[in-house]
């Protein structure tokens, strides 16, 4: 597995891509989940009891930054199918959506726009925030595993 990661990320373009996914995703999710505030001052805050949610956000961002560039590598270099790419993107989107709504501006906008349907969707994403994020991590982990496996086969990497 390490060999495969080294193989893909030996190309600096993919390291850059990885950071370009990780940093905005992490900061964006931390802002949406109210771990970071930028108004009126830039301040970070980890309230008691929310540590697990914070850890899940970091894991989702990390896995997205790992899986998506590896799949783009497969598509670009090996001209493979885009099927596995969708797993990484899907996992990232699900992980990002969970809890992003709740009582913050996103939830308010969704409820204001879609009324009771929006409220139901927001309530679902908020109520099952932790299980949804764990589910997203599982999707990303599976995508990572299958990507590494296929890269090993396609590139004949010795692990």
């Amino acid at each position, binding site marked *: 597995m390490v060999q495969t990661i080294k193989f893909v990320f030996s190309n600096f373009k993919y390291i850059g891509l990885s950071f370009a996914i990780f940093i905005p995703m992490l900061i964006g999710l931390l802002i949406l989940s*109210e771990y970071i*505030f930028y*108004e*009126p*001052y830039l*301040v970070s*805050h980890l*309230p*008691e*009891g*929310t540590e697990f949610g914070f850890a899940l956000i970091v894991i989702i961002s990390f896995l997205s930054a790992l899986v998506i560039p590896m799949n783009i590598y497969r598509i670009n270099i090996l001209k493979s199918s885009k099927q596995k790419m969708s797993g990484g993107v899907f996992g990232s989107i699900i992980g990002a959506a969970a809890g992003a709504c*709740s*009582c*913050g*501006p996103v*939830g*308010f*906008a969704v*409820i*204001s726009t879609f009324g009771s349907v929006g*409220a139901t969707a*927001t*309530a679902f994403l*908020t*109520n099952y925030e932790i299980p949804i994020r764990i589910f997203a991590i599982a999707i990303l982990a599976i995508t990572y595993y299958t990507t590494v496996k296929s890269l090993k086969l396609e590139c004949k990497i010795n692990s």
Partner: protein
Amino acid sequence: MNKKGIIIGVVVLAVIAGIAASFSSSSSESVNLDMERMHGTISTAMGSPILGDPDAPITIVEFGDYQCHQCYNWFHNTKPAITRDYLDTGKANLVFVDMAFLGRDSPKAAQASYCAEDQEMYWEYHEVLYNYQEDKIDGGWANTERLKAFALSLGLDMELFESCLDSGKYSKRVQYNTQQAREHGVRGTPGFFIVGPDGQQQIGGAQPFSVFKQILDQMI
């Protein structure tokens, strides 16, 4: 003439007695509102009673929803320090204004808090709601039965409380408050306005005490 005077006297007494009787029968459910109450640009007339010294130079207006977990976080993590350093010392006071938008139980919970206010237990009821808030929005923790159970646990007159809650007496009040939030550009809960002698500052979200301290100290 004497007879006429007696009749007029009896009528006047009857009218006074009637007015007194109507006041005494409705006093337990009277709405104690100061319709002129404003804090900065915000009409807090329909909001909570003032917590802290009413004459304090600064008012913290909190827009919140009883089902919002970020409001729960703020209530438990930031509010105690604000209470200790600003509310208890008379430097600031606080008004809670409902922005009940998260689920079907949110407006009912807000209405229940005003039913508790009828019995002068608003802040006690407010505290119970944030202490017993559960993770799930509309998961049943704030349904009508639980709201009544909270009132019972506080020793409220249940007949009055139930008639108030079941009649929807305060539904318009909660709607008005939610409208105030929208008109002031509050886009999520909790949302705050710190209103001082020289203006007001908005704070969005369950921000830490350090942010409130910085703003409040600048205003004092």
